[in-house]
């Protein structure tokens, strides 16, 4: 055996074996990612891990508290649902995440790369600064030259490595003949480095190695803040998307991915589940909740040959649906075309930072060129003129500007994230600050789409008990709401026997030999009301109507009141029936409302408002709002919205409450104010420092002082945003 093992290259033997082992593990391993939104402490970590490890077939489980996720390695026959129900039993809320939709490793690598560059430039900056102190305090001749040479040896490689992101971005802008903020930055860093090297060789007095390095360091810090904000938002958005694992149950009970479904396949949809595909009902009878697609709060009847669309929710009976379109082809995805068209208008928005850069970048170049030409004419000394031009370029360089925006957005989005709001788009805060009109959708946004019994007091007492007993036998949302209302009012259920659910119609039973029925108006042969209602018939008595209103979403009234207090116009546009919309508008205090809006009509109304000079904030959740969301100046959707809707929104409300809306607009206004203040501070520094530099009095010490002071003031000013959270 040992004879075989001995070979000229032991690695050649080991490598294939290792590869094989890794490959084998790939095949056997099933990796789940669970979202654990409620964990917060050390006990939760060990509790969750212990609970997961206890499950048969689980090999390893590791909780990440920062991301509130758990990674599970398990055998193939382990079902996620078992793990989730085990965790729920142990008291930890858990959801499955689609592991493929989470690409944390890729973004982590980018973040680590920026951190490494910051570390290198920080290390070099501190060393060169220390050496420079000796020069500033009067080292001369050979000592100064030696210190300059050592500084050069540290600074030049550090710049070459750490400033690469700026060079790359500046180059790609110059290649298409544009100027961005990175062009003056790169020019300043390169010129400062080159000029200082030349001065060192000629044993001159001034070297700007420290300035070039601190410029790199501060600007990289700004970049990192910017990156952090975006990656936090992105990973939370990915998590929202990953929560919807796209699966369908076939008629024979096997579970497949939506992507594997073919046209003509039969899919079973159980009560309470979302219809995963477009199709035609071939078996069963039920009711469908179409509120996410059309905004109607009233469920519609579904039977054989009813056409169903992806995104509808099946309410009462099981349905078997023949697939006509799945995945990319389904109506959910086709909506994307409408969105793409509306979105182009919004992409025209230029952020404050870009607008500042458009003015700033040419000004900096021209000023420094003017300084060079002016001093050339006055003195005719090329080296001295070039020195002054470089000093001007370094002092005017947008160090504070590079920090001004990221520091503020990081502070503001961190604050909004804590109050349950996720910012997906980089310019969303600035756009939100300009808003003067707010358009709300009704079903699912202002209301939870959850019915609430409104007329229990008008129901004869004996009917209440009968209705409660019948409602207990059904999972229909109206039944559940009726049962809940009756229980809260202390009603005792009547002794109804033989309770049986008739799919798509209602519930029936027997009371003292009399037939009793609770269900649709048509089933009881009575006239239907104009609003959501269910009907009860006891024997031959006249049917009694139980009317329902939509349950208002938590914080909806507060949000509307806060927005009105801020002087914004509030409009309600809904696809629902006028009676239901009027009722909600009255309860919540909105005067301007419109009912029975088609998706196109909503988008049109938003576009009209925009044309008349309004800046519209659209808040909506349904597929029927998607086009309007994309057409608005800025858009917000709740986490319960469809994925397609969340994708087009600039911000997502993570919690159930709408209350953060009022705060969000305020934070946006003060964030924009801080950004402008920061620009002003930076300009003020330049106003003082530029004349000094132009006059030729700027030393490396002055440059270092001006740069650090303005960067620190700007960062501190941004931090004031977070401070007023705690109040």
């Amino acid at each position: 055996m040992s004879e075989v093992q001995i070979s000229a290259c032991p690695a050649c033997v080991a490598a294939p074996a290792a590869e094989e082992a890794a490959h084998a593990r790939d095949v056997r391993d099933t990796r789940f990612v669970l979202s654990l939104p409620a964990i917060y402490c050390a006990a939760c970590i060990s509790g969750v891990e212990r609970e997961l490890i206890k499950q048969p077939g689980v090999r390893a489980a590791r909780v990440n508290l920062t991301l509130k996720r758990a990674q599970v390695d398990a055998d193939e026959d382990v079902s996620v649902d078992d793990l989730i129900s085990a965790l729920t039993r142990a008291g930890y809320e858990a959801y499955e995440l689609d592991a493929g939709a989470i690409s944390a490793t890729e973004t982590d690598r980018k973040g680590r790369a920026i951190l490494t560059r910051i570390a290198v430039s920080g290390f070099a900056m501190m060393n060169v600064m220390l050496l420079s102190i000796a020069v500033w305090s009067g080292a001369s001749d050979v000592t100064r030259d030696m210190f300059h040479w050592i500084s050069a040896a540290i600074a030049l490689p550090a710049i070459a490595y750490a400033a690469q992101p700026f060079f790359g971005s500046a180059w790609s802008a110059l290649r298409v003949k544009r100027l961005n903020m990175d062009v003056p930055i790169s020019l300043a860093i390169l010129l400062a480095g080159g000029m200082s090297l030349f001065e060192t060789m000629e044993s001159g007095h001034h070297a700007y190695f420290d300035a070039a390095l601190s410029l790199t360091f501060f600007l990289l810090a700004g970049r990192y803040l910017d990156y952090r904000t975006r990656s936090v938002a992105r990973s939370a958005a990915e998590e929202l998307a990953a929560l919807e694992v796209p699966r369908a149950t076939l008629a024979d009970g096997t579970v497949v991915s939506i992507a594997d479904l073919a046209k003509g396949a039969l899919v079973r949809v159980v009560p309470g589940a979302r219809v995963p595909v477009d199709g035609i009902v071939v078996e069963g009878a039920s009711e469908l909740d179409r509120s996410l697609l059309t905004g109607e709060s009233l469920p519609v009847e579904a039977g054989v040959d009813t056409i169903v669309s992806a995104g509808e929710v099946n309410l009462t009976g099981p349905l078997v649906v023949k697939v006509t379109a799945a995945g990319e082809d389904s109506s959910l995805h086709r909506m994307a075309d409408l969105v793409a068209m509306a979105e182009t208008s919004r992409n025209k928005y230029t952020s404050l930072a870009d607008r500042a850069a458009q003015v700033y970048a040419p000004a900096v170049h021209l000023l420094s060129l003017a300084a060079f030409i002016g001093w050339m004419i006055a003195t005719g000394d090329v080296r001295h003129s070039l020195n002054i031009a470089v000093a001007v370029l370094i002092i005017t360089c947008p160090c504070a500007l590079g920090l001004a925006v990221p520091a503020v957005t990081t502070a503001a989005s961190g604050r909004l994230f804590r109050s349950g709001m996720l910012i997906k788009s980089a310019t969303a805060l600035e756009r939100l600050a300009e808003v003067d009109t707010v358009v709300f959708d009704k079903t699912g946004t202002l209301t939870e789409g959850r019915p609430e019994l409104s007329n229990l007091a008008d129901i004869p007492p004996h009917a209440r008990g009968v209705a409660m007993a019948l409602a207990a036998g059904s999972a229909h949302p109206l039944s559940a709401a009726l049962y809940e209302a009756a229980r809260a009012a202390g009603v005792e259920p009547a002794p109804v026997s033989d309770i049986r659910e008739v799919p798509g119609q209602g519930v029936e039973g027997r009371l003292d030999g009399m037939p009793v029925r609770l269900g649709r108006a048509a089933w009881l042969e009575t006239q239907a009301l104009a609003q959501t209602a269910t009907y009860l018939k006891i024997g031959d008595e006249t049917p009694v109507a139980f009317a329902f209103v939509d349950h208002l979403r938590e914080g909806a009234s507060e949000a509307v009141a806060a927005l009105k207090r801020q002087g914004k116009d509030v409009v309600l546009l809904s696809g629902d029936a006028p009676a239901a919309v009027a009722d909600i508008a009255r309860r919540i205090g909105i005067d301007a409302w419109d009912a029975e809006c088609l998706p196109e009509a909503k988008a049109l109304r938003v576009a009209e408002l925009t044309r008349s000079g309004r800046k519209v904030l659209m808040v909506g959740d349904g597929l029927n709002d998607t086009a309007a969301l994309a057409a608005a100046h800025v858009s917000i959707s709740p986490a319960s919205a469809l994925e397609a809707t969340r994708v087009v929104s600039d911000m997502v409300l993570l919690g159930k409450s709408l209350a953060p809306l009022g705060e969000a607009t305020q934070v946006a206004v003060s964030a924009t104010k801080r950004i402008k203040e920061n620009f002003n501070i930076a300009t003020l520094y330049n106003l003082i420092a530029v004349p000094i530099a132009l006059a030729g009095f700027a030393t490396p010490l002055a440059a270092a002082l001006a740069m650090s002071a303005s960067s620190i003031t700007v960062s501190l000013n941004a931090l004031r945003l977070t401070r007023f959270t705690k109040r």
Partner: protein
Amino acid sequence: MNVLVYLIPISIFLGGLGLVGFFWSIRSRQYDDPEGDANRILTGEYDDHPKP
């Protein structure tokens, strides 16, 4: 002033040591779950499945 011949290399070397340490901490993914690590150290039980 001759002491600078020793002091400058020494100070740069020590600074470089810190830099290498920082690189190592990034490489070994010590910033992946700062909150979790801060809490794990408080649990009484031994972590049987430390991060690979």
